């Protein structure tokens, strides 16, 4: 799950991580009031959308830039009125852009140096790892490729946490001295506590800045949270902004379906994540393009299957639907019943290809046969993919 910049800032403040002064605004008046509260003439206003590239983006109204420096609360108010309620298009949003409902108003910091700090869940060491670099504000992958010596890695024992000596070692590797070292050690430890307490899978501060006033601040942050742990973090679930997500995925998540929207035209319904991925692969191999990833899981109910099928059938790009089930826990008759229920509710306008195997396969096949639905049945995986591609291309 992703969160907004202002939400990340709120979370960091809660854990005592130093960030620039600032707050979120939903109206131009609020924006002006926050600017007055911050004071001074070094202010910045930032559109709150999940996509990157905001500064260089353009609003569909023609107004340029999702990030602006301002020198007075009056200007903040003026900019806010031009950004709120408008759609911002950046290189990451696609041409449809994103509606801007919230703005972050913050003090603009005078930067002496930009650094990089991240904590990731590392699979190889099966521990959290801190990654730090003197090269902040840039793409860390590029730094890692060209100048790996500028990156420090420190493996942290999850049971012990980030020890003070480790935090100090990281601060020294970033070339910090004197009071800056102390500030950084405190900031790193607070970030690590936050990482553990909120079940982060990735926490990236880029850039971590040293200001001209000798302060260490987390300027921009990116967090990913472990979806499996969200049940114990209602405060983070509350940060979810469904306006930022694919509407098909939002619909699927209401029914606890594992769905990812793609841009092809062959919809697929599969049980099991591995088989669902493999089904996408074989569709592509057969010359088609999958419209989605969908794992209905092992314990899906008839209702979940029905809802899943409705999502697939109502996708306007879809030219064929492929149901590929290898029943283990999932019983083939449940799938068949769900598909039949859905077909009663949504008018099925595209060809339906079904491949069933495994638990209760005979019952499932019988149900579908007796339903009188127009179904193209397939014998195995390769046959199913071939028939789906043929159906989607009208051959």
């Amino acid at each position: 799950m992703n969160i907004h910049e202002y939400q990340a800032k709120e979370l960091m403040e809660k854990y005592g991580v130093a960030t620039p002064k600032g707050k979120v605004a939903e109206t131009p008046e609020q924006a002006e009031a926050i600017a007055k509260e911050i004071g001074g003439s070094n202010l910045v206003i930032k559109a709150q959308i999940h996509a990157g590239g905001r500064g260089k983006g353009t609003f569909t109204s023609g107004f340029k830039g999702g990030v602006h420096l301002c020198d007075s609360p009056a200007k903040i108010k003026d900019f806010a009125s031009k950004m709120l309620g408008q759609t911002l298009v950046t290189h990451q949003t696609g041409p449809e852009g994103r509606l801007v409902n919230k703005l972050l108003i913050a003090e603009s910091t005078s930067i002496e140096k930009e650094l990089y700090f991240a904590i990731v869940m590392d699979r190889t060491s099966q521990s959290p790892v801190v990654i730090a670099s003197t090269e902040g504000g840039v793409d860390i992958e590029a730094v890692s490729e060209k100048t790996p010596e500028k990156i420090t890695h420190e493996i942290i024992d999850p049971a012990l946490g980030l020890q003070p000596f480790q935090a100090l070692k990281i601060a020294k590797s970033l070339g910090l001295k004197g009071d800056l070292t102390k500030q950084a050690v405190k900031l790193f430890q607070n970030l690590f506590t936050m990482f553990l307490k909120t079940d982060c899978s990735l926490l990236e501060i880029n850039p971590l800045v040293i200001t001209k006033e000798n302060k260490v601040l987390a300027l921009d942050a990116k967090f990913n949270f472990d979806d499996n742990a969200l049940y114990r973090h209602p405060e983070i679930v509350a940060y979810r902004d469904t306006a930022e997500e694919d509407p098909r995925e939002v619909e699927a998540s209401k029914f606890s379906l594992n769905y990812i929207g793609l841009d092809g035209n062959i919809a697929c319904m599969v049980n099991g994540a591995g088989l669902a991925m493999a089904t996408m692969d074989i569709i592509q191999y057969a010359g088609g393009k999958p419209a989605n990833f969908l794992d209905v899981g092992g314990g899906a109910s008839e209702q979940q299957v029905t809802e899943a099928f409705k999502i697939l059938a109502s996708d306007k790009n879809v030219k064929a639907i492929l149901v590929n089930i290898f029943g283990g826990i999932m019983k083939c008759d449940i799938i068949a019943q769900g598909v039949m229920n859905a077909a009663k509710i949504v008018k099925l306008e595209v060809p339906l290809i079904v491949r069933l195997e495994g638990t209760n396969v005979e019952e499932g096949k019988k149900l579908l046969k007796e339903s009188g639905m127009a179904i193209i049945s397939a014998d195995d995986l390769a046959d199913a993919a071939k028939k789906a591609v043929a159906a989607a291309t009208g051959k």
Partner: protein
Amino acid sequence: MAVLVDKNTRLLVQGITGKAGAFHAKSCMDYGTNVVAGVTPGRHGETFEGKVPIFDTSSEARKETGCNATMIFVPPPFAADAIMEAVDAGIELVICITEGLPVMDMMRVKTFMKGKSSRLIGPNCPGIITPGACKIGIMPGYIHKPGKVGIVSRSGTLTYEAVWQLSSRGIGQSTCIGIGGDPINGTSQTDAIKLFNEDPETDAMIMIGEIGGTAEEEAAAYIKQYVKKPVAAFIAGATAPPGRRMGHAGAIVSGGKGTAAAKIEALLDAGIAVAHTPADMGSTLAKLLK
């Protein structure tokens, strides 16, 4: 005798009175697995299916029944604790079927298991089966056939697919191990390959991987150096978009790492026969046996 489980396995089921636990405990018993005990805290003294004694804790079950393997169906918030309880009881083989364990919980489990002798399989896995002898998990038993091919996989249904392709060709399996789709798990691809390599009853292997992490690359390096038996492989997720978690918590390409292309390259370099599509897993292995 295949690997890890056989006729002598004495199985405990943790969470035996839950819906999924009860259903699959029954189906394992029907297959012929020797289910000797169940655990559901607070239900000590009851029995399952009129014969399997239920205990409050794994250590009681171990003491009373001598169980040497356990299958866990405890819900995600309590599953890590159930694994640690089983390890603490000294149960040799711990199989966690539960899906959805937080990664932080698994890190604690791994720290806890250091220096202890139990082996963990999973979590988020279908389990393990030695066809005709012992089924521990949620896989449909009837698709399997006793034989000499070892299968290790990160995906449940994709394993069934491979098994079915083999059985339909008359090729049986020694043991099939589902290691699970989570980023941190108990038994790795390499661990399973080592077991099969040392097992006189296993003549060939199929390794089924997916995008994310480097488990397949590590296994490929091991195979290149130590394995003489023929190995076939398939990697799922070649067409998955980067940065998206494909159902399994561990199936994600991030920062350009964990791609199917990199894995396939490592497999080919190790002399492993890679199936181009999931429909070719059986035929790819069959060619190696000729």
